[in-house]
């Protein structure tokens, strides 16, 4: 519950918090459809060219991908903990959890960057150096999807890192953030995690059963 009085258009702080929650979930719904549209494209090609997709997906780095998934899941646990800490008034614990969340987010991006560099070395980057003769046209479509989706995801994650980092700093300042604020940014962070939960099997786990 907020401690400050609500804005003039709201009657109570509770109403304002409920409005914030609904607003954030509406925004997340738009993000589901934004990323989902990319998935629609992916599905179309996976349905019509399953063998080539599987062949292309085997070039992804499953160890790094799995590690990254674990990193992101852990970061979600930390920001959920931060919400509880903020709610209990434990500002330094909250700041620590938020800082860990952001740090894990940075770790994710670092691992992703390392992955990208490996793929660059193997000539798997469309528009830059993709070796279509070696891998084929459909593989290029797969990797286009891969870079598009993970790049967009990383962009959303970077925004989240900035927000969470800012919250961490604010938690130990004179005007610590309200629980509702941490909760809302937590929702955003968890959502970025959910996107990755779906991207992971679609990118890394295709065609491994051979």
């Amino acid at each position, binding site marked *: 519950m907020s401690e400050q009085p609500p804005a003039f258009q709201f009657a109570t702080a509770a109403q304002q918090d409920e409005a914030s929650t609904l607003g954030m979930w509406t925004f997340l719904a738009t993000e589901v459809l934004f990323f*989902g549209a990319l*998935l629609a494209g992916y599905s179309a090609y996976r349905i019509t060219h399953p063998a080539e997709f599987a062949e292309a997906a085997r070039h992804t780095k499953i160890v790094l991908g799995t590690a990254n998934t674990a990193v992101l899941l852990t970061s979600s646990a930390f920001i959920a*903990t931060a919400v509880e800490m903020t709610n209990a008034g434990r500002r330094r614990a909250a700041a620590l959890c938020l800082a860990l969340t952001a740090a894990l987010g940075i770790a994710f991006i670092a691992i992703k960057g390392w992955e990208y560099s490996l793929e660059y070395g193997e000539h798997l980057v469309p528009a830059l150096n993709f070796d279509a003769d070696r891998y084929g046209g459909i593989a290029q479509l797969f990797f286009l999807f891969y870079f598009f989706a993970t790049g967009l995801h990383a962009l959303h994650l970077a925004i989240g890192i900035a927000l969470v980092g800012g919250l961490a700093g604010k938690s130990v300042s004179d005007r610590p953030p309200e629980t509702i604020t941490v909760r809302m940014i937590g929702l955003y962070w968890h959502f970025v995690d959910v996107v990755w939960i779906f991207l992971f099997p679609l990118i890394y786990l295709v065609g491994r059963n051979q």
Partner: protein
Amino acid sequence: MSEALKRIWLCWAALLVLLAATTGAAFLPLGGFNAFVALAIAVCKALLVLIVFMELRRSSGLVRAFAVAGFFWLLILLTLTSADYLTRRDTTVPWQAERDAHPSAGSEAL
């Protein structure tokens, strides 16, 4: 609050178990079923994050409806688009059929 923390970190443990399961299952020779297993586990992980971390378990019905709405609408996009891709039949016109029967070296892809 320790209740809440226990719930969060138990959920985290479950998520890591599911991650190990999905990665492991990918290597099992299940044919077309692999895709289904991977997506099913992904849905489970997403539900855990949504229900526990994003607190849908103690949100109002309205908030839950909002949470579901995006995914439901995405399902519409995926289902009806797939309806086209799954039901297409390739029809060859006479000149294509002839070209396929007698492919000559260096011919254009289209």
